[in-house]
């Protein structure tokens, strides 16, 4: 499990003064928040708010202009095997020659390390994760022959196979039917009971307060962060989703046009 000196008091995630930009257009600006362990956290915000970017920068997939993200009290490199990531389904080409089981087995590769091949125990773990997401009957299917929702669940099963402590999931419910969504959310709640911390990018405001006990509202900047009861309010929602371009976005566009770097870390 976690490092000796990480206790349950150590935050699962600490994002400090994070700024990220694409082609010098900032899409996350001075984001700063902390989430405790053992929560099921919803990351909410409109399209283009920077939710995917936030997760990607935490996972080291896009560069930060400034700030840092600490997981379980340290940089990602120290706890990599305890952290798992579910990307958006569209991020890969599903025509790749692999079966469902092949993809889920990839979740075991991190712990296996270089050169080693997956063993029987890995295969069994992968199969049980497939069962958890209800895809066991499809284990030998070529991944292109799955529906969008099923593909999303393959990614979920791959992440579960990592047996991590912290999960970042980018829209795991996109294209998933209501019954499956319920099954998955039950699974995530069970994981929370086991002390795991799960971050989920989510769009549906109806279901959000029922699903999550912690929420992060984002729209280029951080709008609110805290327990659902405290932050799921009319004002916060209005501020996050309120139609007008915020001043910040307009300034960001200006920066991009002029080619100025936003800030240096």
């Amino acid at each position: 499990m976690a490092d000796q000196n990480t206790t349950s008091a150590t935050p699962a995630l600490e994002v400090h003064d994070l700024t990220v930009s694409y082609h010098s257009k900032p899409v996350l600006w001075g984001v700063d928040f902390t989430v405790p362990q053992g929560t099921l956290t919803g990351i909410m915000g409109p399209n283009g708010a920077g939710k995917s970017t936030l997760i990607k920068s935490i996972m080291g997939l896009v560069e930060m202009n400034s700030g840092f993200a600490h997981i379980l009290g340290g940089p990602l490199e120290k706890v990599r095997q305890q952290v798992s990531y579910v990307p958006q389904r569209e991020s890969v080409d599903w025509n790749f020659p692999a079966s469902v089981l092949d993809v889920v087995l990839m979740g075991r590769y991190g712990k296996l390390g270089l050169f080693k091949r997956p063993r029987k125990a890995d295969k069994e773990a992968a199969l049980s994760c497939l069962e958890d997401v209800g895809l066991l009957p499809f284990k030998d299917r070529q991944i292109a022959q799955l529906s969008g929702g099923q593909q999303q669940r393959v990614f979920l099963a791959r992440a579960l196979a990592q047996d991590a402590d912290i999960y970042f999931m980018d829209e795991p419910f996109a294209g998933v039917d209501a019954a499956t969504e319920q099954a998955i959310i039950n699974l995530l709640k069970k994981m929370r009971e086991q002390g795991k911390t799960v971050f989920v990018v989510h769009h549906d405001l109806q279901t959000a307060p029922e699903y999550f006990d912690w929420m992060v509202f984002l729209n280029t900047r951080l709008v609110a962060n805290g327990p659902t009861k405290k932050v799921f309010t009319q004002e916060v929602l209005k501020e996050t989703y309120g139609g007008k371009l915020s001043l910040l976005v307009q300034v960001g566009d200006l920066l991009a046009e002029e080619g100025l770097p936003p800030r240096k870390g």
Partner: protein
Amino acid sequence: MNWLEFITFDNALIRNVVLGSTLLALSSSVVGCFTLLRKRALVGDAVSHSVLPGVCLAFLFQGTKDPLVLLIGAFITGWLSLLTIDLITKRSRIPEDAATGLVLSVFFGVGILLLTYIQHLPNLANQSGLDSFLFGNILSISEKDLYVFGAVAICLLTCVWLFYKEFQVLSFDEGYASTIGMPVKGLRLLLTTLTVLAVVVGIQSVGVVLMAALLITPAAAARFLTNRLGPMVIIAAIIGATAGLTGTFISSAFRTPTGPWIVMALSIMALGAFFFAPKQGILAKWIRQRHWNRQIQDENILKAIFQFQLDNNSNDPVQTETLIKWRPMEAKQLRSGLKRLSSQGYLEQNNGWLLTQVGQKRGERITRLHRLWETYLTKYLKIAPDHVHEDAESIEHIITPELELELEKLLDYPEKDPHDSSIPRS
């Protein structure tokens, strides 16, 4: 070179050349699988063409035709072309495919320019051999060099074997590979180096112009034949090796460059794959279609005889002509169908046609399915009774016994169909 010696593998040198050529083609094909899957096929082509100036420059500086020196030159410009593509894509708004095309033509152009220049130099002996780099001529290579290339090829294969799992994830989902702590940058570098090396050894047999075919064609054909990465790599290796073997063989008989023959063999095998692939192949589709058509015909005949006897309340043999009149069918197809059915034991010929017990059952079942489906369509999909017949005509042939049970249960074992004909019980 004596053809007979070649066939019998008597001559040790020839044997080595053939085996060497096979090995080179094999290793290029294996590496090519990952080039294809990472969608770098065009980049592979660019690298192939970009090694030409390297070969020429190495020759100009060293004045030798020592393949090793030339290949170091090839390796350097091959890599340089990749770096240039990278630089252009990052630093400008030119998209990667355009940048790749640009680099390909510029590097290859320079290569041809240098080659022409070398061929017009008066005092350099033996420069003519250089053009074998254009179309490949493994037969002209020395035994010692063959060993060197063979060793490189084996290194390539070993690397792929060792890093198989890493290359798999890298090709499928690079972002994920990095999140689980794989050294993505290093792996990417390694895979690219392997690609350049595969090109460098491959051009010995195929030449720079056709090298991309050796890199990509086996992988593409193999992808068509399987849906798993492991089998794909193995099939690509077999296709590449076979092409290397036959190509070298034929070209030695005609004393022409090896490349075109190898690529010819590759293309024939790729076409073969498209035709004969077990599931997606054109032939397999055609066979399935035929099988299907026959089944429909057979079942329609059985159904017609069954219904005829039912309607006329008789068990007398039915004449072919009567059948044609009663349910219009094409006479030739009907005759061949009747013959087939009697040889399969569904019909008996006895002054006309009689259903055997199994024939009776099958005819009855099709009738039942037809009428059940009509009932289902009118009841659940609210389609008018006069619109359901056509649909039932095709669906009756594909309903499985499990679906049949479900359908009966759902409709609560109906007695009559929407046209008030009775539905036979199973």
